[in-house]
């Protein structure tokens, strides 16, 4: 019954690569990923139970944040492992086929697009850069200091706090612009993500820049060094670097046309 209902969960499409997948690599639902070669393309996939990945159960799972989180991390772990041996074209979470034949048909149908995109992304990685303005510490260590004795003292300290906040925001914006301009020089393509809402992201601070850069592996070290150089040491401005990622943000074919 279960074997009837097994589906194919595809993580990524790659060119054929000479190494075997690591034996201890695990994918979604703790499955062991495998490769399926069709011509000059390879799909990296897992056989997953229809009980979890069939349309109805999947729909239910996708409303479970813990499940989505675990599945997304497992998906990324496979894609990430692939970047060590080849340039993977990451597919979107939960790309499923009924059987190997369906995967082959997809590779066949998308052949031109896949090979073109793989050629474009080969040897490139993605770096994520975010700039946050943090609330300057509200100087709560004031108890040592006497409470404002007059209205004027109070207003003065309020004004200081407001000015400090505005300054941080302005400086963070400037840094964001400077960083973006400098980092763009290393990037072959750029994707600007919407600023993250701290309520949703649960990440503190005001997000001013949220960008992904497609950078050749060879010059990635320069990219990171430049970032470190510019990021400065203002404790109120946080610069976050993530990566190298597989080129998720640049994998869709329309990116190629957009960027030209």
């Amino acid at each position: 019954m279960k074997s009837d209902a097994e589906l194919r969960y595809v993580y990524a499409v790659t060119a054929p690569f000479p190494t075997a997948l690591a034996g201890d690599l695990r994918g979604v639902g703790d499955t062991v990923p495998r490769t399926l070669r069709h011509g000059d393309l390879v799909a990296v996939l897992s056989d997953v139970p229809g009980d979890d990945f069939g349309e109805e159960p999947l729909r239910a799972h996708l409303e479970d944040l813990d499940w989505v989180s675990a599945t997304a991390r497992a998906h990324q772990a496979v894609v990430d492992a692939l970047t060590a041996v080849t340039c993977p074209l990451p597919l979107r979470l939960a790309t499923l086929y009924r059987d190997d034949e369906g995967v082959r048909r997809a590779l066949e149908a998308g052949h031109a697009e896949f090979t073109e995109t793989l050629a474009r992304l080969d040897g490139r990685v993605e770096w994520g850069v975010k700039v946050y303005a943090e609330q300057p510490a509200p100087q709560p260590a004031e108890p040592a200091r006497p409470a404002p004795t007059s209205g004027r003292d109070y207003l003065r300290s309020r004004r200081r706090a407001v000015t400090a906040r505005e300054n941080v925001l302005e400086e963070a914006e400037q840094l964001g612009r400077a960083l973006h301009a400098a980092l763009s020089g290393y990037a072959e393509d750029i994707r600007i993500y919407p600023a993250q809402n701290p309520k949703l992201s649960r990440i503190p601070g005001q997000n001013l820049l949220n960008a992904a850069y497609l950078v050749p592996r060879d010059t990635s070290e320069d990219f990171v060094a430049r970032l470190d150089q510019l990021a400065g040491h203002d404790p109120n401005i946080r610069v976050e670097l993530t990566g190298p990622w597989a080129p998720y943000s640049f994998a869709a074919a329309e990116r190629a046309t957009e960027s030209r």
Partner: protein
Amino acid sequence: MNGALPEPGPGAEAGPEAEAEPQPGTWPEPYAPRARDGTYQPMARREVSLVDLLDRVVGAGVVVTGSLTLSIADVDLVRVDLRALISSVNENVPSPWEGGQPL
């Protein structure tokens, strides 16, 4: 085009001398993304935020036509559901950093 193994990651955490580091074995360490918050740490340990992950794994990546389930519209629904879910979590549970404590 993909014949040669790619270079290992830039020696971001170890400084410029790290490029001489030997790469043993057929499977180098996964080219793990790193989070930067003063230090570089492997993402596996210092996890990249779920939002960053979902922006890529759900919000980007190739959409292949002809796949079995969940059209793109459904994927967008997923995001909406997630956002709603995260928001509702925030409504019920005071966020952990509001007391000035980052996570």
